[in-house]
């Protein structure tokens, strides 16, 4: 299934602003992140800590709705979803 990833700030610099991913049906956010992380050491360091855990500060949106940390592992993505990844915001 086709998923569009939009990355911002430091994440954009490392993985690019828009990435089209083709993930297996039933994939979730950890699989999406693993795909992005596999592209470079820099990307892996940004996404995962030394234990392979998704870094605490990463914020996800799926179709412009923020994903609660507690549901990070349980959300199943669907064809055409737009996933955004970014660090804590600093506007204002």
């Amino acid at each position: 299934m086709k998923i569009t990833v939009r990355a911002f700030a430091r994440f954009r610099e490392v993985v690019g602003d828009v990435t089209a991913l083709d993930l297996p049906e039933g994939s979730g956010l950890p699989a999406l992140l693993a795909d992005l992380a596999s592209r470079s050491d820099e990307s892996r360091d940004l996404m995962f800590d030394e234990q392979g855990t998704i870094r605490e500060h990463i914020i996800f949106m799926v179709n412009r709705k923020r994903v609660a940390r507690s549901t990070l592992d349980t959300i199943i993505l669907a064809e055409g979803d737009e996933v955004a990844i970014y660090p804590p915001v600093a506007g204002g």
Partner: protein
Amino acid sequence: MITITHEDFDPGIYIDAARDRQVGGIVTFTGIVRDDGITAIELEAYREAALQELEAIGDEARSRYAIQSVDIIHRIGTLSVGDHIVLIVVGASHRGDAFRACEYIIDRIKETVPIWKKEHSEEGSRWVPGEHS
């Protein structure tokens, strides 16, 4: 009006536009680029989501406080010291609600609106760390 723009704005125009027969006070917050030894600051937004979030914050402010109007203008792009970053204009019948709503709005913007700042200086560049995760 709630918007995200590359263009500069004139706070006076928005203050005047907030005048209404039921409005007894207009409170504004203008965020500007501070001189922290930087040469420029770059603002980036997840524009569609940021706009949606600003609209939601405006609605929250209206439901929590007795206010007549809310304007939020947030700039993106490359800015210099002294440039406007953000403008919030709140019109209300009474000052208390206007002050509280204005503070509520800027605090919420800093918490949730997907906008980031990168500072450029002689020493290099760095992303301004967010206060909330």
